[in-house]
């Protein structure tokens, strides 16, 4: 029997490639200069889900993301790689959420999807690096969790077997389904887009994105319902409003400071043997080396 798998993914600014133009003259981050990407470890999670789908016939992979309208981009990225459908959870009511409020909103959306066997997510997102949303979704749904996963060996007979990558070793664990698995960056990279799927889904859109489309396009979606990316607002999921957004977030940001470096007095050396020899001698003489 097939598995019902949800992949949690986040669209993030590409903080790994903060170039010289990423900081404004006043020292603040120029967010516009950072590309919005599919969070890298969520890609590793998607790959694990797609492998399970191949292994267990009849499985279905649904990508779930919470974010602004443009986050539909990463659902399309998922569809191009083999996900079956996607849900964009988007509403101003979710704005200002810390990890706890985010996890709560996501768990409410998963409850709406129902009868899920496995929820996979990246271990953490590169914009916050907190690694909290996976475990907190598990807690909100009262499910077991397996974090730091590197490979899902099997998911059958109500059990999942997973290899975990820890700081200095590996662990093989068995957990009952349903459960939440968060995947490490050391797991296999995600497959590239498939040309066929790219053709099939390139016009997939959310209802908001369809607003200004021609009648021809709307007819096309009627014929091909898979071109619809589900867009859910707070009204589409059952929630306790007090647990959403700012009011559902116990942590508050008191202050944000930009990091400014104090330049040191720097000696510039050439790469010729003489210069390097001088430096090494100096380091040995002042007992930095040896």
């Amino acid at each position: 029997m097939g598995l019902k798998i949800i992949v949690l993914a986040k669209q993030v600014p590409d903080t790994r490639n903060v170039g010289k133009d990423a900081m404004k003259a006043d020292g603040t981050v120029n967010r516009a200069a950072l590309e919005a990407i599919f969070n890298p470890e969520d890609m590793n999670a998607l790959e694990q889900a797609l492998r399970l789908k191949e292994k267990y016939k009849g499985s279905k992979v649904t990508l779930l993301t919470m974010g602004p309208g443009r986050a539909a981009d990463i659902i399309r990225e998922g569809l191009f790689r083999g996900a079956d459908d996607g849900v964009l959870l988007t509403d101003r009511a979710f704005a200002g959420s810390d990890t706890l409020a985010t996890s709560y909103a996501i768990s409410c959306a998963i409850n709406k999807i129902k009868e899920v066997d496995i929820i996979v997510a990246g271990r953490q997102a590169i914009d916050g690096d907190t690694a909290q949303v996976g475990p907190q979704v598990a807690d909100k749904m009262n499910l077991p969790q397996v974090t730091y996963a590197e490979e899902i060996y099997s998911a059958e007979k109500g059990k999942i077997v997973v290899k975990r990558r820890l700081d200095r070793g590996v662990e093989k664990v068995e957990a009952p389904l349903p459960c939440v698995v968060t995947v490490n960056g050391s797991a296999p990279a995600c497959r590239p887009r498939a040309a066929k799927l790219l053709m099939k889904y390139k016009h997939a859109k959310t209802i908001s994105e369809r607003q200004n489309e021609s009648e021809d396009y709307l007819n096309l979606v009627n014929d091909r319902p898979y071109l619809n990316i589900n867009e859910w607002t707070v009204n589409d999921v059952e929630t306790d409003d007090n647990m959403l957004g700012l009011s559902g977030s116990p942590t508050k940001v008191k202050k944000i400071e930009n990091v400014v470096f104090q330049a040191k007095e720097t000696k510039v050396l050439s790469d010729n043997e003489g210069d390097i020899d001088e430096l090494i001698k100096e380091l040995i003489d002042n007992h930095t080396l040896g």
Partner: protein
Amino acid sequence: MNSVFVICEIDEGKIADVSLELLTKGRTLSNTLGCKLEAVVLGHKLNGVEEELFPYGADVVHIGDDKRLDPYTTLPHTSVITGLFENEKPQIGLLGATPLGRDLGPRVSSALKSGLTADCTALEIGDHEDKKEKKSYKNLLYQIRPAFGGNIVATIINPDCRPQMATVREGVMKKEIYSPTHKGEVKTIDVNKFIKPEDTVVKVIERHMEKGRVNIKNSSVIVSGGYGMGSKENFEALYELADVLGAEVGASRAAVDAGFAPHDRQVGQTGVTVRPKLYIACGISGQIQHTAGMEESAMVIAINNDSAAPINKVADYVITGDVMDIIPKMIKSYKKNSK
């Protein structure tokens, strides 16, 4: 006054360094607040473990000793910590930002609906004025952490929910004996009160841990490589240089992401914070994420083919050129001059 709690972790049969670092920080915080510092240790066969903790200033050590708590699995630990925190009502709860702490912390904070700030680089006590709600708060925990790839530093507070929870990476705080003769009280946790039968559904089938892991944190010289090294093969040159100098090899996040080096060698905000006597940065551009983890090095040499690389700003010496050409010259020079 409610206490400061530190959840301690066992590593190779001893209390992990990160836990002792947190106790040292926790002692300072509890002195500022005028409250007790309490440690929690969960595991199996923990006889005498409190003796490791008292010198670091613990006033109370809570011990939960049960075979269901070793090896670590999420649910039994969550149930015990959540239950203990509900009874003891700590104002602050600290954990290491280790795989264990980052698995357990979010789960406990979700169960208690308290906040959790991950990977803090500083913890301070301070007040807060909420102008909108016209409320003022005394003695909150300022949880200071980098965000956005290290380009900003945020101060996070948790005004209304308790405990105020935070995780801190190994090596970020200093470990210091408070008093070798300091003694406290041992309290045994009745774990049967907290662990539910359904908590033991996750089983560890196999476990392979390497002994004496790479510990670049304690090395006085670090040779570190970045994405600019180009390949895993080129990283071999760094191991060679490190071997000659008696150093350890570190790596930037980009190099680790590219598979040039294993994660346990990663220096920076999402890796280890290091303060060696000498840090040699090879092919590292110097994103804040990286420099934040090494800028306290006593001396920095940056080797890079980009004379405008940001790493040069934190370097004492800059050598502009091809790393693969410069490293052999350094090896040769050191061998010649060290005799």
